[in-house]
């Protein structure tokens, strides 16, 4: 079943939801209903997405590559520049919209419980729906311009949502930081798009319309009409944009601070969807990246940055105490994996990891949110322990997601991570090194995740529950980089007040309400089955005759394997090597688990003396002091520059402006004087004008 503009309605619904809540949310709908309305619109969008994807699935494979195109509107037509407001559903965007609307809907439901009692309840859902719609614009848009619009819209929503508890200075600052760092990335992205446009004007025959659609650009590039070096520069600029949005080196610094936002936001925007936009964008423009892969010393730049980010962020995550920060660095690290995948041309593996990551990372974040909910917004894992007694459902789901992200079979993370590593391995010599980095990262991932899991759910808290006061701002802050004395942690602000007023203050931890744990269960189940249902390794099914196959691979083939571009998909490696690689990743994961058990197992609780050496590593604790470095190298000189500009602005520019304004006002007053109110003057004025015109026409013609 289909109907016209189906795709348009998919993106329209969340925007409508945002409008409804914006106009009536606060006044009429209020607490439960505003959330219900938002969920309804999100779920409607999901239902339509499923419908659209079913339509797409019924098309023959060859046609599927083109996808369903919904040309909503001729948008900007200026001479050759002909941009349509046009949406495309091809297998790649199909995967994305299912993740975005599916996980998005679940998180909406979760947020109904989580945001309970917040005075800006309805506004939160306005932003959330707005984000959903923007993200859908990003993934459904058929051209660079629409992608850019979506890109900026999600950035704006992210800013609004990070700073949602804006009375808290740290939240406002985090929002600002995210925004500024993203601007740096967007700058490169925008230049990349401009350059693409310039390249198109030169590559296309004169008079041919420039649509800037991915299809057109890909075709032109694949035909070799654009010089290799230009394409490479475009790729680098696009990737620059991706490092901003997807938090890669060197622009990853905003994501950890972004955890100041409400936890559902962290789960939706800063783990499952928005931050994957960079990966999506590279996969979307893969023809460019395949045509002219930027390399540095034999390493593909994208893969190298991805791998380095992965290990770098993972090492920081090893010693963090703030559970949301651990997850944030984990997200950066996992995004690094995805870039590693797309960097070596393993687009399917990258997208696969994107999907599974969305499941388990959302589950982890929401689990962390549930913990915070039960512990009145405590985020310091040193004050936790033994929570499995109090929050059994959160515990089980969190455990599942932890196993999934650690890469232990047969859960989702194992399959996708293993495939990324295998593809990296087969990518020449440089690939071996990338694989090595990835493997170490896998070990670290397993370690820090189980560390957190054991500390939070097993053992005992350092101070027994019930004695600790909710929201103690004197906790020694573990981030010296947290810029300011007023960054107080997560425990003040509207939310905690509301929660405490609701009777959660002090007392024992408690399990979260049903709609929150229900969502956790759904995501946990997806984390379990998502892996082998979507991407069971072909070589095993070939060898054993199991009825599973690499569903995602088959689905995405039309996107990545057209026009002779084959990418570097699996199948080159022998079964033995494949198995060996698989064994290595399993070993790394189990080793991580064992190490975590040794250092943080319940036996060591609650002091964890043997781990203190690691935890006191200043370099790791200080996150390699990158924030300080940026502060010293960029921000401070920036201030100096700003002072100079300020002086220039004040004394030179303002003077010019003031003089101009004086001039304007002076002449304004002069002419105003002629407006005497006397009819006779007006008639004289007209006569004067008429005389001059007559003279002009009669004597000068």
């Amino acid at each position: 079943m289909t109907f016209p503009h189906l795709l348009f309605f998919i993106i329209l619904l969340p925007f409508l939801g945002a409008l409804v809540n914006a106009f009536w949310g606060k006044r009429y709908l209020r607490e439960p209903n505003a959330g219900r309305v938002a969920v309804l619109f999100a779920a409607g969008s999901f239902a339509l997405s499923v419908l659209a994807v079913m339509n797409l699935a019924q098309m023959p494979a060859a046609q599927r590559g083109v996808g369903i195109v919904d040309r909503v509107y001729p948008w900007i037509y200026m001479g050759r520049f002909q941009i349509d407001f046009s949406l495309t559903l091809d297998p790649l965007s199909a995967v994305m919209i299912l993740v975005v609307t599916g996980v998005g809907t679940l998180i909406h439901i979760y947020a109904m419980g989580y945001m309970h009692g917040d005075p800006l309840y309805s506004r939160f859902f306005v932003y959330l729906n707005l984000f959903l719609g923007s993200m859908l614009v990003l993934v459904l848009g058929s051209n660079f311009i629409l992608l850019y619009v979506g890109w900026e819209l999600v950035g704006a929503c992210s800013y609004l949502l990070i700073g949602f508890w804006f009375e808290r200075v740290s939240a406002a600052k985090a929002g600002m930081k995210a925004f500024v760092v993203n601007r740096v990335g967007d700058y490169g992205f925008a230049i990349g798009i401009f350059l693409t446009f310039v390249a198109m004007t030169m590559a296309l025959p004169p008079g041919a319309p420039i649509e800037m659609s991915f299809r057109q650009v890909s075709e032109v590039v694949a035909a070799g009409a654009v010089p290799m070096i230009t394409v490479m520069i475009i790729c680098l600029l696009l990737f620059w944009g991706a490092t901003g949005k997807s938090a890669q080196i060197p622009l990853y610094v905003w994501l950890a601070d972004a955890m100041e936002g409400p936890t559902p936001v962290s789960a939706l925007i800063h783990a499952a969807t928005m931050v994957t936009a960079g990966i999506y964008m590279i996969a979307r423009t893969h023809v460019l990246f395949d045509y002219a892969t930027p390399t540095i010393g034999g390493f593909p730049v994208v893969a190298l940055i991805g791998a380095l980010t992965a290990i770098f962020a993972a090492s920081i995550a090893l010693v963090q105490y703030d559970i949301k920060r651990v997850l944030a660095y984990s997200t950066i690290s996992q995004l690094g994996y995805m870039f590693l995948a797309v960097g070596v041309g393993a687009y399917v593996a990258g997208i696969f990891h994107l999907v599974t990551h969305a499941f388990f990372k959302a589950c982890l974040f929401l689990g962390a949110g549930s913990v915070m909910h039960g512990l009145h917004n405590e985020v310091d894992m040193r004050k936790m322990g033994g929570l499995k007694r109090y929050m059994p459902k959160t515990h089980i789901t969190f455990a599942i997601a932890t196993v999934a992200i650690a890469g232990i079979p047969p859960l989702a993370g194992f399959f996708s991570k293993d495939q990324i590593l295998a593809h990296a391995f087969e990518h020449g010599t440089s690939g071996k090194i990338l694989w090595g980095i990835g493997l170490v990262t896998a070990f670290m991932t397993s370690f820090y995740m189980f560390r957190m899991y054991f500390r939070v759910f097993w053992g005992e808290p350092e101070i027994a529950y019930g004695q600790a006061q909710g929201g103690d701002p004197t906790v020694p802050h573990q981030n010296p980089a947290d810029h300011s004395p007023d960054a107080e942690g997560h425990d003040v602000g509207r939310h905690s007040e509301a929660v405490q007023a609701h009777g959660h203050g002090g007392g024992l931890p408690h399990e979260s309400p049903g709609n929150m744990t229900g969502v956790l269960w759904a995501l946990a189940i997806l984390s379990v089955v998502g892996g082998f249902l979507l991407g069971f390794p072909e070589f095993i099914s070939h060898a054993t005759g199991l009825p599973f196959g690499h569903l995602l691979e088959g689905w995405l083939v039309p996107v990545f394997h057209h026009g002779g571009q084959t990418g570097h998909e699996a199948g080159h490696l022998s079964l033995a090597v494949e198995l060996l690689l698989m064994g290595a990743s399993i070993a790394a994961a189990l080793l991580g688990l064992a190490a975590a058990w040794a250092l943080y197992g319940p036996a060591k609780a609650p002091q964890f003396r043997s781990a203190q050496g690691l935890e006191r590593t200043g370099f790791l604790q200080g996150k390699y002091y990158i924030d300080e470095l940026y502060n010293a190298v960029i921000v401070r000189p920036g201030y100096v520059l700003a002072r100079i500009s300020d002086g220039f602005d004040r004394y030179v520019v303002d003077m010019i402006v003031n003089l101009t304004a004086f001039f304007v006002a002076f002449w304004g007053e002069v002419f105003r004087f002629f407006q005497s109110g006397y009819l006779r003057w007006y008639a004289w004025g007209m006569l004067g004008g008429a005389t001059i015109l007559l003279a002009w026409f009669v004597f000068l013609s």
Partner: protein
Amino acid sequence: MTPALPYYLTLSAILFAVGMMGVFTRRNVLIVFMSIELMLNSVNLAFVAISRHLNAVNGQAIVMFVMAVAAAEVAVGLAIIIAWFRNRESVDVDDLSLLKW
């Protein structure tokens, strides 16, 4: 033989100027109004003359329209002047200067 067109046009221009002078010099709003009517009628004269000169009838048709329109304008104008007079108790155009700058 009728006089040539330039004579009529000159007369019309003179009448137009006379009307304009009335607008500039008179203070009574009614006389200003009448002066404007004189300007309109000077143009009517021109139309008739041109029409005759060109041997075409439409210039004379225009005059009919102009007269009809002028009549309507006078009616409306007098009504507004009366309304203004009631509030302001003046017929001096110089008092018509409440709104300025």
